C-alpha cells in the first residue's frame, strides 16, 4: 500500500487559567511511502512523531490535511469503507505489556482480529493462530499462556503476530523496539525485515534511535516541533545531514568502540 500524507495539521487545545491556547502537534506534514518500503520518522520527545502515527492509524482526527491510502483519500471514504481500510493498517506500540490484555490467553489475543473482521470457525482460527505464531518464531505451546508468562521479546512478537493477522499492507511501528534489550531488539529487527520481504508490507517506523532507523529504513524523515525538517534516503540523512536537528540527533547517539578485535589469548 502506498501512503501519501499531505499538509497534515493536528491542533490540540490546552486549557489554562484564561481560557485555552492552541498547541500544534503537527504543522503541515507531507510525505509519501512507496509500497513495500520503509519510512523511518525520527525526532526527539515532543516532536510530534507519535501524533503522526495516531493520525495515520485513524485514532486521531487530523485538524486539516489529507491522508491517502493507495490514492483513496481517507476522509472521503464512508464509514463502512473506512472500517475495511482499517484492517489494512495496523499499529504496534512501544510497550507490549500494556497493549496486550493480561487476562487473555495468547490464543484469544490472536483470535480477536479475526473475530472483528472475518467470520471464521474455531478450527480455522486455531489454524490461523498456528500460522501466525510460526511467522513470528514462537512455538505452539505459547497458545495457552497469558502475556504475564512471556518475556518482553516474546510479548512484542505476539503483538506483531496480532498486527499481521489480517495481512495488513501498512504496519505502523511506534517505538516498537525501544523498550527491548539490545539482543532482543536485533531479533525483532530481523523479524521485521523477514516479514516485510515475505508479506510485502509497507512500514512507517517511528523511533528516536537513528542507528536502528538507518539500519531498517529506505527513507528517513527527521521531525522537530511538529515539522519535517529534513527528509531523504537513509544513507544521505546519516552521512550528510543538512539540518541542525539531524546533527544533534546524530551527535547524541552513544556508540560502542567498533571493529571487534580477535578473542583475547588464553592465559
Amino acid at each position, binding site marked *: 500500500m502506498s501512503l501519501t500524507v499531505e499538509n497534515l495539521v493536528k491542533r490540540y487545545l490546552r486549557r489554562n487559567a484564561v481560557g485555552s491556547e492552541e498547541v500544534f502537534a503537527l504543522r503541515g506534514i507531507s510525505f509519501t511511502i512507496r509500497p513495500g518500503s520503509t519510512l523511518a520518522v525520527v525526532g526527539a520527545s515532543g516532536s510530534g512523531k507519535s501524533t503522526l502515527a495516531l493520525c495515520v492509524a485513524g485514532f486521531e482526527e487530523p485538524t486539516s490535511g489529507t491522508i491517502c491510502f493507495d490514492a483513496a483519500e481517507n476522509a472521503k471514504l464512508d464509514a463502512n469503507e473506512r472500517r475495511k481500510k482499517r484492517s489494512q493498517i495496523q499499529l504496534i506500540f512501544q510497550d507490549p505489556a500494556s497493549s496486550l490484555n493480561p487476562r487473555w490467553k495468547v490464543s484469544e489475543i490472536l483470535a480477536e482480529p479475526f473475530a472483528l473482521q472475518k467470520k471464521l470457525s474455531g478450527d480455522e482460527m486455531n489454524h490461523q493462530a498456528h500460522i501466525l505464531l510460526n511467522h513470528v518464531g514462537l512455538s505452539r505451546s505459547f497458545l495457552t499462556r497469558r502475556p504475564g508468562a512471556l518475556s518482553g521479546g516474546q510479548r512484542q512478537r505476539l503483538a506483531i503476530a496480532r498486527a499481521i493477522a489480517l495481512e495488513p499492507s501498512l504496519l505502523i511501528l511506534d517505538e516498537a523496539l525501544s523498550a527491548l534489550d539490545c539482543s532482543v531488539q536485533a531479533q525483532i529487527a530481523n523479524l521485521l*525485515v523477514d516479514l516485510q520481504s515475505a508479506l510485502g508490507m509497507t512500514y512507517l517506523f517511528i523511533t528516536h534511535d537513528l542507528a536502528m532507523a538507518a539500519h531498517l529504513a529506505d527513507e528517513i524523515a527527521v521531525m522537530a516541533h511538529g515539522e519535517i525538517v529534513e527528509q531523504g534516503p537513509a544513507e544521505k540523512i546519516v*552521512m550528510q545531514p543538512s539540518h541542525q536537528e539531524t546533527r544533534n540527533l546524530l551527535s547524541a547517539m552513544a*556508540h560502542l568502540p567498533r571493529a*571487534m578485535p580477535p578473542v*583475547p589469548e588464553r592465559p
Partner: protein
Amino acid sequence: MDSRNRIFIVTALYFQSIQALPVISLTPARNITFDALPHRVSLVLPTLVPQHKNRGTESTTMTAMLAVHDLCVSYSTGEGELHPALVGVHLELQPGEILGVLGESGSGKSTLGTALLRLLPRNACITRGAVVFEGRKLLQLTSEELRQIRGQRISIIFQEPSRALHPTMRAGQQVSRVLAAHGINRKKSLREKTRRAFDAVFPGETERFLESYPHQLSGGQRQRVLIAQAIACEPSVVIADEPTASLDPTTQSEILNVFRSLKKQLKVAMIFITHNPALLVGLADRVMVLYAGRVVEAGTVEKVLTSPAHPYTRALFQSIPPEIAESGNSRKAKLMAIPADLSQESLLPEGCCFQARCTEKMEVCSAAEPTLINLGDSQSVSCFKYTH
C-alpha cells in the same frame, strides 16, 4: 513503633509494592517506608549465612570502599519455589570509581542495586553473602543503622523520575528534605547544601529550578532533580539504576554529561546499571557483565568494550546495529541476534548459564559451571573456552 504508625507503614508498603519498582526518593514521606524494614528484614535475615567461608579475598577488600562477597539473592514464587536472581556475585568499588553493571532484563542487575541497600521486595531474600561498606557489614546492621547509611553514605537513583518525585512539592524542597532527614536542621546550611546540589546538576540555572514543581519539568530535568537528591548529602557511593532508560537520545546524552561532571567534580563512586553498553563509553572505569544473576565477565572498560571475551558479551555487542558510517552496505542485512532469550527455559539445571544460547558450546559446558578466571590483569571471564 505504635500501631497507628504501623498501619501507615503497611499502607505505604502496599503502595510501594503495587508500583513496578520500589522508588526511594529520600523525602521523609518515603523514609517512613524505611522504618518498615524490620518487618522485611526479619524475613531476610534468618536465612542469612553469617559468614562466607572463603576468606582468601579479605586482604584485597581492605582497600575497597564497598565490597560484595558471594552475594546470592532468590525470589520466592507463588508456588513456594525459589528462583535465584543473583548467584555468587563478587564486586569491589574503589573510592571515586565508576563501575558499570551491564545486563539485559532478568539478568539481576536491578536486584543487585537494591540488594546492596536491602531494599529488595518482600518476596526476595538474601540467601548468602556479605556486603562490606567502609568496614561495616551492611547485611548485619539494624534498620536504624542502615537508615543512616541510605541516602547519606550510599544513595540510589531509579529509572522512572516521574514516579519518584512528590507532585506538589517544589524541587528545591524535595532535595532539602533529604538533607533534613539526615540531621541537617539549620535553615542556612540546608539552603546552602541544597543550592550546592542544584549547582552540580543545573549549572547556571539553580534559581529557576529550585522553585519549580515536578510537572513544570521535562523528563531530563526531573532526572536531574533526582540526581541532586542523591548527591545532596555528599555520599561516597551513588547507585544509578538505568537512569537514562526512559529518556530520548538527546536528553540521555545530557544526563550522561551530568554524570561525567559529577565524577570529575565530586569524585563520588558510582555503580551505573544499564542494558546499553554504549552508555559506558567515556563514563565507567570498570564493567561487570551479568547474565542470569552471574558475573560472566568483568574488567576495565577499555578491555571489555573493545575485546570482550565471553561469548555472551561478544554476541551482545554484535547485535547492536553498526555505526552509521559503516552501515551503508549492510542496511537491512541481518543483525547478529543471540538466539532465544534469557528466560527460565534457557536456564538448564546444570552447567554454564549461557550454554543454551551459546554458539561456541562445548561438551564441558553442560557438565560443570565455569568460574571467573583472570585474563591478564584487567579482565576476567567465566567461560571454559579459556581454561580448556
